[in-house]
């Protein structure tokens, strides 16, 4: 087992062959990516489709050439190593199994190709199968398996080689609903058991938040933030991260700050809503300062018309069983609030809100970067 270090990694696709109309030439798919993944750590590469996360994974696996930069597995520079010499396990989105072979032979295939002796193979397959809960599937043919079972076999196949590094590319994206959730839990427990260094590519922030020790959020080939789930959730570095993590996403509203030296208020165009600016921002804001304010739906307290706070009109009210979501119009934006309160509101009702000042974030209007106190 080994860690993974990525230093100043670049990838540029050679577009000279086929020039597609409209495609930007000379664009980097991955730009100056630096990552460090400790031994036994589980990191997630998270970003929208086309952000370069899969490219990074493929370069790590050796399936894609590196334009510039270095990738180390453990202490070994692997830039020029053939994939088979990198000691990695791969689990892809498409579970490409060999249809004429049974599950057992599929799992054992790699070891057989390497010439490991039969008794050893058998031992290892029997060892892995219960871990992935596929011991009773071993004699079946791939066509008879459900999506979730196929993915389990697929992962079993990746880890049977005892890789130093396990790479997974959206392994859950073909599963739906409950199967997906169950499989997510299984992967989490499996990695916890075998303690293998893992890189996991996904576009689903929930998967990343649930599984990973650390999340690398990538957009347009550039690393935005690399941190623990709690860090990226509570302390996002920019607007992109703030709105990408969390569901419903953070409310981000353009605001003009008014006030004198000691007391400031957020005001919003087209709305009479005013929110107190926490005092810790006093050094960075001034009267007339324009920026964006971000606050998570959970961090606004909602009370009935008798409680104190800013009165606002309910635009949408959704009762979702264990929680209720309220939408209010602030200018053109729908601001979402979440409450556990049992009260049922209707559109048009007046509620009072109180924003938890310590949970507000400020972002630069132009760059989207966090403005820190």
């Amino acid at each position: 087992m080994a860690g993974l270090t990525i230093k100043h990694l670049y990838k540029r696709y050679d577009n000279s062959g086929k020039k597609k109309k409209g495609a930007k030439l000379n664009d980097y798919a991955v730009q100056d990516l630096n990552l460090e993944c400790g031994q036994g750590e589980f990191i997630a590469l998270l970003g929208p489709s086309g952000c370069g996360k899969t490219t990074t994974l493929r370069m790590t696996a050796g399936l894609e050439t590196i334009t510039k930069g270095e990738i180390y597995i453990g202490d070994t520079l692997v830039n020029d190593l053939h994939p088979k010499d990198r000691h990695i396990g791969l689990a892809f989105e498409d579970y490409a199994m060999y249809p004429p072979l049974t599950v057992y032979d599929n799992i054992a295939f790699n070891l057989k190709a390497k010439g490991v002796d039969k008794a050893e193979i058998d031992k290892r397959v029997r060892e892995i199968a219960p871990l992935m809960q596929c011991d009773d599937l071993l004699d079946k043919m791939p066509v008879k398996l459900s999506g979730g079972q196929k993915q389990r076999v697929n992962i079993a196949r990746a880890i049977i080689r005892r890789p130093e590094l396990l790479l997974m590319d959206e392994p859950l994206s073909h599963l739906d609903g409950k199967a997906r959730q169950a499989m997510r839990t299984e992967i989490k427990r499996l990695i916890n058991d075998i303690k293998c260094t893992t890189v996991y590519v996904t576009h689903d922030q929930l998967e990343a938040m649930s599984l990973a020790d650390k999340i690398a959020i990538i957009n347009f080939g550039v690393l935005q933030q690399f941190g623990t789930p709690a860090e990226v959730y509570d302390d996002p570095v920019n607007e992109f991260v703030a709105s990408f993590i969390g569901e419903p996403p953070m409310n981000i509203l353009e605001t003009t700050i008014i006030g004198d030296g000691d007391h400031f208020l957020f005001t919003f165009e087209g709305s009479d809503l005013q929110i107190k600016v926490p005092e810790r921002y006093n050094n960075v804001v001034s009267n007339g300062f324009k920026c964006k304010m971000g606050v998570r739906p959970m961090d606004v307290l909602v009370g009935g018309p008798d409680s104190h706070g800013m009165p606002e009109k309910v635009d949408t009210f959704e009762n979702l069983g264990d929680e209720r979501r309220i939408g209010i119009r602030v200018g053109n934006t729908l601001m979402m609030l979440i409450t556990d309160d049992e009260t049922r509101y209707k559109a048009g009702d007046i509620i009072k809100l109180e924003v938890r000042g310590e949970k507000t974030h400020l972002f630069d209007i132009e760059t989207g970067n966090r403005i820190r106190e």
Partner: protein
Amino acid sequence: MARIQLENVTKRFGKVTALDGVSLDIKDKEFFVLFGPAGAGKTTILNCIAGIQLPEEGVVKFDGEVVNLVDAAHRDTAMVFENYALYPQMTVYDNMASPLRSKLYKKDEEFIKKKVHEVAEMMKMENLLERLPSQLSNGQKQRVAMGRALVRSPRVYLMDEPLAHLDAKLRNSMRTELKSIQANFGTTSIYVTHDFMEAMSLGDRIAIVNKGKIVQIGTSDEIYYMPCNEFVAQLMGDPEINIVGGRLEKTGAGYAFSLNDVEGRTYQLPEDKDLFAALDEAGLTDVELGIRPQNVKYSFDPVEDYTKCTVYSYESIGNKSVIVAEIGNLQLRMIAPNGLAVKIDQDIYVKLELDHAIFFNMETKEYVSRYNEAAVKALAAEQEG
């Protein structure tokens, strides 16, 4: 603008019975949700109402008038399809104008232009009108499909899982948007979904469909708090409700409940006269309790009256997380905030808030009674009124 009734509708495809004696009475201007797992027959119900499929038995009535023999074009409905079913060779504008250009609902081009732009503005897609469907993202296609239905003022809107193919985030925001324009519909709407959040959020009333039959009809609160059986209870809610099996024992005027899966764990049930009366009447010893994840309390330090378990998993579900705790064969789901430092297999202490429990018959899995039933009924009645 129509009351839709289905009476004993049965639909078979070869030997498969897709609908088995479905009866529904959907009120005028109601937003009615058909909710159930995949393959339950929800879409078939919608197709029977639209006239795309003809039921073998039973009648479909619009405003009391039997329409079984009226073909789809003449039923005056507008439908949104799960796969959007846009006309690929037409621009967004022509797609949306198409219902107003058919012989039956013919309008002059000026009116069409006004109407299409009005709907496009409401759906926030004025900038898409000149594009072809192949140039749209899934979310945009969904809007166009919805827009094509909204340009007309039919007797009933039929929507078949319109949000199903969007990713989770987009689905949630589209649902909220749909909720905010819902008031503008002013027309009977029937909405099919397998997403419980959509059902809860949008439906004036919800019908739970399973295996071609209607299982329960009610307001969202009714169904959430008083599910008629365990299947409905499990369907309504994410994370799923905890079902805990055990034995009831009468102790004086009250009851004691001992868990089946955990040796020697017995609770004295909190007092609720109506509940106890219902339990007396049912005379059950083997019951299953449904306890929602938000009604399971936890602590990482030992607390009196809490039961020691181990953490099976800790996962984010968006704005909060779910801890699954394990004790013996029993797994309990509970809601926790995001970003806790929880390790798998660490100790956790758990308490079930029994005063929110829903009681089910262990054998039939049917609803028996629950705590505060009267209050819940009052809440549901208020919602309906």
